[in-house]
């Protein structure tokens, strides 16, 4: 945890953490929605997108939130109401649980788990639970199909994601996310340390698999069968209205942001810049200058936005798979490929 100049009581620290967590989740989510969903998509379609609310429509999201908040919180007559109401919160919860382990700087993190990536993979799956119960409790056939598809899909893509991460873990020799960042920035490629050693170079296959799995995990096109507005009319979200729909909506983009954070940590060097430039020593984080705690989040955000841009670019360009094709793709292609990747990484790790 960041060392502050003045002593802050425990409750104060907790409050700061909560506020920090909210900022770390909601700010990227808002940025993603405005930059990519509103503007990039519109530009790719020869239009301007929202232009009326605020300069260049920058306050459109605020207007949308206001609109959703006003709407009635409906539940279908035969829905399982308590469960139905709790489902979106579970989905959003998993996003907040994920951000807990993401380090934004040498000392700017919420908690520093030794098994950070393990934890992240574990809590990332909690959202499946929310989606599944949202689909089931809506008492709607479309929602049910969407929920079941989501469950099948998220479980299928959990595996390649974990396996893709394993390559990184083997190469970094740690499951601690901060250690993974350090390993990349402190490393060198064939004796040249000027770029550090971002794992995207050595683990390119892993990176691709991870990004595909993230795409599927986020249920973005081409893997958006659980939502599939032209078939299942938004799937598990069909019956939700008002702020519960808003929570699903935020969770979708916040999770995109958080997964992009994790991807940038695993493959792009996270908050760091190559330590070689400033002569820092990776073995001792104390040698890293304190200003990295401020610059780190900005570097992270830049990398995150680049990754999200790719996710969204793909989303706006591709049609979607069919459910069975998606499963085939996961089980018959991605998983064998990631296993081969692990094997290759392990062999090279041992031999070098």
């Amino acid at each position, binding site marked *: 945890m960041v060392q502050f100049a003045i002593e802050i009581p425990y409750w104060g620290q907790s409050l700061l953490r909560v506020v920090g967590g909210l900022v770390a989740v909601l700010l990227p989510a808002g940025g993603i929605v405005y930059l990519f969903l509103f503007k990039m*998509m519109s530009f*790719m*379609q*020869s*239009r301007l997108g929202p232009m009326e609310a605020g300069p260049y429509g920058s306050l459109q999201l605020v207007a949308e939130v206001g609109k959703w908040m006003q709407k009635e919180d409906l539940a279908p007559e035969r829905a399982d109401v308590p469960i139905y109401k709790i489902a979106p919160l579970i989905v959003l919860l998993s996003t907040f649980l994920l951000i807990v382990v993401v380090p934004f700087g040498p000392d700017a993190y919420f908690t520093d788990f030794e098994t950070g990536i393990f934890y992240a993979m574990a809590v990332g799956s909690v959202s499946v639970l929310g989606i599944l119960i949202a689909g089931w409790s809506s008492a709607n*056939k*479309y929602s049910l*199909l969407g929920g079941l598809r989501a469950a099948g899909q998220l479980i299928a893509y959990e595996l390649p994601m974990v396996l893709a991460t394993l390559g990184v873990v083997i190469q970094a020799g740690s499951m601690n996310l901060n250690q993974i960042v350090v390993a990349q920035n402190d490393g060198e490629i064939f004796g040249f340390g000027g770029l550090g050693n971002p794992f995207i170079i050595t683990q390119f296959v892993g990176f691709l698999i991870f990004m595909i799995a993230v795409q599927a995990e986020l249920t973005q*096109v*081409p893997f*958006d*069968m659980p939502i*599939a*507005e*032209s*078939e*299942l*009319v938004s799937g598990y979200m069909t019956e939700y209205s008002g702020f519960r729909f808003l929570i699903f909506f935020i969770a979708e983009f916040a999770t995109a942001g958080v997964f992009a954070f994790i991807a940038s940590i695993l493959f792009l060097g996270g908050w760091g810049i190559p330590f070689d430039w400033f002569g820092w020593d990776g073995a001792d984080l104390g040698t890293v200058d304190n200003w990295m705690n401020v610059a780190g989040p900005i570097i992270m955000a830049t990398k995150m936005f680049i990754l999200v841009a790719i996710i969204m670019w793909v989303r*706006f*360009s*591709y*049609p*979607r*798979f*069919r*459910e*069975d*094709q998606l499963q085939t793709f996961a089980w018959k292609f991605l998983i064998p490929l990631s296993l081969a990747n692990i094997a290759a990484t392990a062999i090279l790790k041992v031999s070098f």
Partner: protein
Amino acid sequence: MTLTDRQQLSYIASQAADARLNVELETEGMTLNIGPQHPATHGTLRIICRLDGEQVIWAEPSAGYMHRGYEKLTEVRTFPQVTTLVNRIDWLGSFANEVPFILAAEKLMEIEAPPRAQVIRTILFELSRIANVSLFLGDLGVQMGAVTPVFLAFRDREYVLNLIESATGGRFHPNFDRIGGLKDDLPKGWIDEARQSVKKLMQFCDTIEDLLFGNEIFQSRMRGIGVIPAEVAKDYGLSGPNLRASGVDWDLRRDQELPMAWDKADWKVWTHPDGDSWARCWIRLQETRESCKIVEQLLDQIPAGPVMTKVPRIIKVPAGEAWVSTENPLGEMGYYVVSKGDLGPFRVKIRSASFNNISVVPWVLKGVYVPDVITILASLYFILGDIDR
């Protein structure tokens, strides 16, 4: 034998048939109502599907949510008034709807439009095909979750609509055809504008081919899905690209004699042997290109002269019966016009393409998955107004 009794009996019989099917499969099917308010149905078509998991074991389209009774309405209207009515059958390619009706009336009156009118008619006919099918090409993406193609389609269709509007005054409902010719001649500068627009539409076809048709995901979704063999297609009376995608080489523009100008242009009728969703979409893409070519060539061949032949101001069509059908964007669109020598037709049977095209749905949807229901419907391409009339 009262009507309701028989209907009830037939309903009970169909329920019993379903029940038998379920007993044989030993599963409890789920009935999924796709529509009438569903984004994939371009309006209000309802498809009742019985599902086993995600597999469709029985499907039945239920049309009629947009029935406007045009066949009845034509009986109280005069011939010129019917034109504006039939505009609204296939609202995306409305000019093409007018043509066969006007041709049928002209056939009964034994007159023919002047050559200039024939060429301009053909140009506008093909432009309305481009407007119609370009939207289909974009919409195809939306049905499969790709959001961008439809916006590009809207963008480029606008060029065609602007052309149609500046010539006829109506973007969607031109009402430009008159018995004996056209309402008016083209405005100055239209031909040059049309040349440029057609070039843009050719580019649009390439864009869509790159963005959608070349996409491996798209191909894997489309190939081998919803195969309709030629025999079945003919049996159900499928027409247009749906028929040609099944390998039947039949295009009314080429295969019948009409006072239109298609034979003045050099173009090709595309067929595809596969009969699957891919074939249907691909044929439409190729046809858009052919239409662009036809327009491009005909723009150079507009003869000078009047656009209207001599007709009485109050049009009374001589008694008789005539059937004229043309190759409309959606398929064979025909009118069986019965006149008794009055101001208005006695009976008009409107044979619209989508009605037949959609009647194959129960056959083709058996055994496919829910996502394929959407792609097959999209590839069959129907317009609700064209089904229900």
